[in-house]
């Protein structure tokens, strides 16, 4: 157990029966075979790189890094040191996610005409520090935090993005609400809305030629489809209308099993990180060419107000 706060490190180690605790990553690296890094995103790259160089395999909390550059550093250092790098994108492990990816891989991706993606809730994470609202620690706001999940899945499901137009409400800090309009290389158009302030419907609607599929709860394991036969197909051993039950804790178990499996078979970063690097490149590109979200009640009479 490693924490900059020695008391906290000791307390958590004691609570979970860990033998060792320290305030130094370098010291920890001499005691361990693998690490789970759940520090603020901006610290992921330097910590991961030092661990890889010390011969340690690493599972990183999402987002993989606070920028695409940090993500590329992580992937490169893992490859150069022949180490395993995994990322805690838990939603990849829903059966619904995997089934939909299999369905789209089977040829349906080119049939997708439109997807409509809304995620939002009043932010209430019981954080002890303010890292998540500091751009230098977190790399961004809602788009970086929530988007690291949703943009990762968007790329897994619908392929590469061709054009994007991004809007948020960042007035010199980090955004709380954002919207992404996207055209995928497949030709599909998409809309993604993410909010840390509002309860949105938390679902994804996908409309294809002659079919539609809904992920009615992005935090659940369910699919709805029309016509009904769409979901009767089997991909990766899963039938869309008969998905085995899963709970959120199951995802964390799956994530750790995935990490252990990757270590056993010495999986490469390309295999394990998947679209995590590409999604951060897309997020970076959106931040670089951002537009102001129109909020008439914030700047009455003006189209936008961004310093």
């Amino acid at each position, binding site marked *: 157990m490693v924490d900059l706060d020695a008391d906290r490190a000791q307390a958590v180690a004691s609570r979970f029966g860990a033998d060792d605790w320290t305030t130094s990553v370098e010291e920890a690296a001499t005691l361990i075979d693998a690490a789970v890094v759940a520090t603020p995103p901006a610290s992921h790259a330097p910590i991961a790189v030092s661990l890889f160089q010390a011969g340690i395999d690493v599972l990183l909390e999402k987002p993989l890094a606070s920028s695409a550059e940090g993500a590329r550093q992580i992937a490169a250092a893992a490859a150069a040191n022949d180490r395993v790098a995994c990322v805690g994108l838990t939603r990849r492990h829903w059966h619904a996610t995997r089934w939909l990816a299999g369905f789209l891989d089977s040829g349906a991706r080119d049939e997708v005409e439109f997807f409509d993606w809304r995620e939002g809730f009043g*932010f*209430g*994470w*019981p*954080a*002890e*520090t*303010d890292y*998540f*609202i*500091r751009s230098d620690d977190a790399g961004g*706001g809602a788009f970086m935090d929530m988007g690291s999940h949703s943009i990762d899945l968007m790329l897994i499901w619908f392929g590469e993005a061709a054009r994007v137009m991004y809007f948020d*409400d*960042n*007035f*010199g*800090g*980090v*955004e*709380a609400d954002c919207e992404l309009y996207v055209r995928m290389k497949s030709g599909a158009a998409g809309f993604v809305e993410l909010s*840390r*302030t*509002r*309860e*949105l*419907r*938390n*679902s994804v609607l996908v409309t294809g030629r002659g079919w539609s599929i809904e992920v009615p709860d992005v935090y659940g394991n369910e699919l709805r489809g029309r016509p009904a036969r769409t979901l009767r197909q089997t991909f990766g051993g899963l039938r869309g209308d008969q998905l085995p039950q899963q709970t959120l804790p199951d995802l964390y178990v799956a994530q750790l099993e995935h990490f252990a499996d990757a270590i056993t078979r010495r999986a490469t970063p390309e295999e394990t990180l998947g679209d995590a690097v590409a999604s951060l490149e897309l997020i970076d590109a959106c931040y670089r060419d951002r537009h102001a979200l129109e*909020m*008439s*009640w*914030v*700047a*009455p009479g003006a189209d936008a*107000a961004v*310093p």
Partner: protein
Amino acid sequence: MTPPEMERPVLVTGATGCIGGRLVEKLVLERAQGVRALVRNWPRAIRLARFPVELRRGDLDNPADVAEAVKGCRAVVHCAHDYERPETNVEAARALLGACAEHGVDRLVYVSSLSVYEPLPAGELDESAPRVPCGWVYPDNKLEVEQLFEVAQRDGGVPVAIIEPTVVYGPYSEPWTMRIAPYLRYGRPVLPDDGSGLCNAVYVDDVVESLIRAVEVDAAVGERVLVSGPETVTWREFFGAYERMLGVSSVMLMPVAEITAAIDRGSSSARTASSARRDPRAFARAVLGERAVERIGAALGERLKRSVSQSVPTPLVWPSPQELALYSAHTAVSIERARALLDYEPAFSFTDGMALTAEFAAWAGL
């Protein structure tokens, strides 16, 4: 070039709320004023963090936290009010006064309330109206804090200005926008008689403008100033604006005597608990009862709105005795002192303010 005084920040308490939050936005966006905000916990700072403001975590009833937050500020605008722990508002005021005196703050602006005059007398009301404890928690608490600040001002310790806003509506206004919407959507709010009691509504931006002027204008020091909108509307009109906004027709008019009798019979228990007011679903549970909500069963969640309206008789939402008095009052608030001292002129008509509120409500999914 930024004037030297603008380089010292303004401390805003209650900056995660409606008035304080909007004050931060306008200070940053329109005045290029440095802002420091004292927040109780980090997750509540999610909207504030959109702006380049200095965030400090601390409790207002902790003098050490307050002193650290006040240090180096040129002014303090005290918007915070703890509804759950009224006694702490007095402690917070004392802590602020002590810190402002210690650190030589140029101005302390306190956001009080029209409530200090409750129950409101008929006719025109200005700052000369009597303020006496009435037995209701909120007005008495606000009055106690007001008087604490007035004494401190008279003793010469801190330059204090007190702003008394009326019925503040607009984005994120908990009592007059966020709470009204679920009342109208899921219930039938009851108004007295023909709903002709006068509502002195003021759009939040006008209140914030008066606060900024109270920071800047020396004539505000030592004064209490009522701040309202450009016109009064009836309470029927006020609720009607929200009905049109939401596409519902929910208000029920009822003679005062019937409402009083219903309250006496205990029907007010059908109203919501304070904790439910922030959450439409919790509100629905509170007014409908857990069993009714359970009957809705799987339809809960995103389909709650439709399911509730189709499945369950709409409950009446009774006013509290304090609200009944407010809705019955025929009081028109004078803003002449605000005009004279602050050069204040409300910029948002009721129509304009509600139009912006409607755009916010649609975006926020109220």
